[in-house]
């Protein structure tokens, strides 16, 4: 059973990839190449995305056409800022693999690793 969230992501993915406004019909047709999805389901989820502010829509002739309000890069940038940036409650919300470090320390790290590599080869 696929979750509604998966369909949300699939719709956004298509619209970002196409880079142009599209109707629900076009999205459904493309989704149906892989699996059967009902027109009304996609219509409902597109409506949800619109109300969440992720899509905007306009009437073109007699059909609604949808397009993302922001680019995928904008979303990614926001996520990266949240994950890496300074935020009072970030520390308890996300666990980062390593913190970013200064260029001097980066150099020291590389030297330390090189030394180990050399020791291994001898």
């Amino acid at each position, binding site marked *: 059973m696929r979750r509604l969230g998966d369909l949300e992501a699939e719709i956004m993915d298509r619209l970002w990839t196409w880079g142009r406004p599209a109707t629900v019909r076009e999205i459904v047709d493309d989704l149906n190449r892989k699996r059967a999805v009902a027109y009304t389901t996609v219509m409902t989820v597109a409506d949800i995305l619109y109300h969440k502010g992720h899509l905007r829509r306009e009437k073109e002739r007699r059909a609604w056409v949808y397009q993302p309000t922001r680019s*995928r890069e904008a979303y990614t940038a926001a996520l990266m800022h949240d994950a*890496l940036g300074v935020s009072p409650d970030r520390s*308890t*919300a996300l*666990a980062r693999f390593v*913190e*970013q470090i*200064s260029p001097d320390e980066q150099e020291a790290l590389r030297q330390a690793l090189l030394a180990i590599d050399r020791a291994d080869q001898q």
Partner: protein
Amino acid sequence: MIAAAVLAGYATVVGWAAPAALARARWAHRSPKAALALWRALMLSFVIALALTAYHLTRTGQHLHGLLGVLDVWLGGTGTPATERAAEGPGLLVPIALAAAWPLAWFGAVLVRSRSHRRRHLALLDLAGRPEPRLHAVVLEHDTPAAYCLPGPQPRVVLTSGTLAALTPDQLHAVLEHERAHLRGRHHLSLALTEGFARAFPGLPLARAARTQTADLLEMVADDHALRSCTPKALAAAMCEVAAGGVPQTALAAGGPTVLLRLKRLLRPRGGLHPAARTALLLLALCAPALPYFVTCGPTLG
């Protein structure tokens, strides 16, 4: 009054002197789990000592139990009626519960805040990220190497495409195992606990030290977990690649970044602590919170 003074002294030692000593302890990095237990024990001891101090301040008259009572008898004190020498009853739990409610309320507040933060993050992540079922991870299209995990009912390990490009398969495996260890161990709860404690007692050295030390020690626990299925070299190299790829965006913590401590540990392993030493530390962690009770409220033996 004597009991209150003794307890306040104990709270002072636990809240001010002990944290500095434990933060400097070199064995902590060899057995991060034992060190974590000790930090939690110190926090609990502090709360209990505080509660009992307040309790004793509100009691009037001669009132000596526990070890203090024993001392009193030895010194020939006769002012305390025998009925006052028995161990304190369960009524003692009331002040302890009251004192614990304050940091626990902060813990709850931190949990709620970070959960809503994670939920917002997850909603965007699931829209913009690309699921990578083979890695059990979500990939973000971004050149900066970064890896993090998002705990919760629908946990996620997140990598950037920059991370995928920079790492070898061995190194990638090490990163993924490290992040999964955080998720499996529910480390976010430990972090929220120390964060809540720090907000409940701002400025208290124990609170400050417990927060930073817990974060560092949890990273080491996750490293140790990853080392079960990867080499120290792979993990160390992965750390270098991910840490070196980005631009520092946060002010560095005092004492240098944790990644340097972790690397030192990986590259110059000194082995775990002797089991006897670990047992002794765990016993200490169990006894520290009970000590204030036995000194001032326990049964007066002899």
